[in-house]
């Protein structure tokens, strides 16, 4: 069992959904990210999604786009982020999943990336613009051979053939995009979400985490009834943006994350 499998097994035992907060690595700089990750763990995170900033984030809304711009301006690089994971993985004690676009991995070299991700202690990789049919051995097999889970996404537009393909390629968990659209809060979650998530959960062997557009404890609580994990991203990233270099940031983020964790029955 991988650390991600174990994390979901534990939350399942506790009859609750896993809390999976997201932050963009290096926003506003890597030292700050290091502190913020600690705060997320203290607040009750079960897994962490760590965003690798990219210049052209087509799946992200304005909040995460601006975070990526700040991170890149602050000098964040893939190798710097892997170093950060390497320094902190044991201290944090919970699985870390990289949330990334394909190009930085491709340019690094997929074999080399798999090697470095694994030795840094990355537990899973979720590549938002890489469908399984383009991933093949170079990516999926290379990561799995080194014990890193490969997480793929499903969306409201995915038909049953796609569900089958994504299920076959995913380990750790499957990430369900709650609605058609980019990351970020948009008020209401779609009515079909409950039905879709229930249906998918019956079909999948892996745990199902739901993300995109979940920003409040109420929404997180509602989604947790039909999912094995709930991802909250932009709402936390917004706090990082709004607080800037305010010394209260770590405390504020921890408080916000705790409310979300509690809404999931932590």
């Amino acid at each position: 069992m991988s650390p991600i499998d174990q994390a979901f097994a534990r939350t399942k035992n506790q009859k609750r959904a896993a809390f999976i907060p997201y932050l963009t690595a290096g926003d506003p700089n890597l030292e700050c990210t290091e502190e913020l990750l600690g705060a997320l763990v203290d607040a009750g995170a079960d897994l962490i999604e760590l965003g690798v900033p990219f210049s052209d984030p087509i799946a992200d809304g304005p909040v995460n786009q601006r975070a990526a711009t700040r991170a890149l301006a602050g000098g964040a690089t893939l190798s710097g982020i892997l170093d950060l994971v390497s320094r902190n993985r044991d201290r944090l004690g919970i699985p870390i999943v990289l949330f990334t676009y394909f190009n930085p991995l491709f340019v690094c070299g997929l074999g080399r990336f798999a090697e470095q991700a694994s030795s840094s202690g990355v537990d899973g990789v979720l590549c938002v613009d890489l469908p399984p049919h383009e991933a093949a051995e170079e990516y999926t097999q290379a990561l799995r051979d080194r014990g890193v889970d490969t997480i793929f996404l499903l969306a409201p537009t995915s038909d049953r053939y796609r569900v089958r393909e994504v299920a076959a390629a995913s380990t750790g968990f499957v990430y369900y995009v709650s609605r058609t659209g980019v990351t970020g809060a948009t008020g209401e979650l779609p009515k079909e979400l409950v039905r879709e998530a229930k249906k998918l959960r019956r079909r999948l062997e892996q745990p199902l985490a739901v993300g995109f557009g979940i920003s409040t404890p109420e929404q997180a609580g509602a989604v947790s009834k039909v999912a094995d994990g709930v991802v909250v991203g932009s709402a936390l990233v917004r706090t990082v943006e709004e607080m800037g270099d305010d010394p209260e940031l770590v405390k504020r983020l921890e408080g916000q994350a705790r409310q979300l964790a509690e809404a999931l029955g932590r």
Partner: protein
Amino acid sequence: MTENPEVQERPGYFGPYGGRYVPETLMAPIAELESAYDKQRRKRKFRRRFEYLLEHYAGRPTPLYFAERLTAELGGARIYLKREDLLHTGAHKINNAIGQVLLAEVMGKERVIAETGAGQHGVATATAAALLGRSCTIYMGTEDMVRQRLNVERMRLLGAEVVGVDSGSRTLKDAINEALRDWVTNVRNTHYVLGSVLGPDPYPRMVRDFQRVIGEETKKQLRKQAGRAWPDVAIACVGGGSNSLGLFSAFLDDERVRLIGVEAGGTGSELGRHAARFKGGTLGVLHGTKTLVLQDEEGQVAGTHSVSAGLDYPAIGPEHVSLRDSGRAEYTSVGDDEAIEAFHLLARTEGILPALESAHAIAEAARRAPALMPETVLVINLSGRGDKDVESVLAYDEQRE
């Protein structure tokens, strides 16, 4: 890079380039588009409607014009201009826009969106949307909105909503990012009319096919005018690469024809000062396709520069990279200065203001023609007209004085 050069031809790939690297939400509409396109392109009804609109609405065939005074001035090859600038809306972009908006109609998508750099593709899409009764939103970088102001007003007058994109370099690349975000969000009722031979499969081959008429007409016209159905040299500018592939694709099997693509050399060879992917690009994945990309060592996409908004883009259509690898086409670049000079040259000798994009192709022809024999036939794809660039050229000239 661990890319195996012996990769088998996969569907959606040109050699090792191309593919379909998109978020899961877009996999369904892209599959829908692929099946609609593959079905419709074989249907007589669709083909006839497309051809009818190209002829009676857009103004095809466009003339192939023997540029006698330009030929005399350069003193070498016989230069012919394929006059795509005379099409309705002023550039080759209308060929593809009509094709794709017709497909949107067949697929029952009541809304179309597009990105635009120089504004020509935006104007063409807004036009086709008005013609075929679709609502239309165009994304355009705010820097491009300044330098192509006339086209912004044209799109608005045609009933399109023009959304300025203020992120990144505020040019074509960022407009595509924003169009993709719109598509992910409104995927069920919206078709994305991508304007070049870029993006995820099937766009590169579909856009090429809709533009292929340029080369096919050239063939027929040369037979009549030059006594043979092929040129010795065919030259076209390459931003994403749709006007060039439109011309080249009709001659790919004819090794007698030298195919030359011209990229934007901008103001220098450092990253950020040009858009010459074959000079400074490395293999990457941008906007859904694996191709040459101007980027840093971390895989972050670089800024680009060209006086021509339509060539100012960090990636190139994947089929071009494959044509370069096989040696079937060759690629070169022309800088801002030389392109502006070529703009004036064509205006002075032939009374034609070319688009700054097309001026890059004219500049390359001006370099080569003098060294060629007088019986050599050289075709330049004059992909667009220059009205939109008048302000840019005036500002450039003023600055240089």
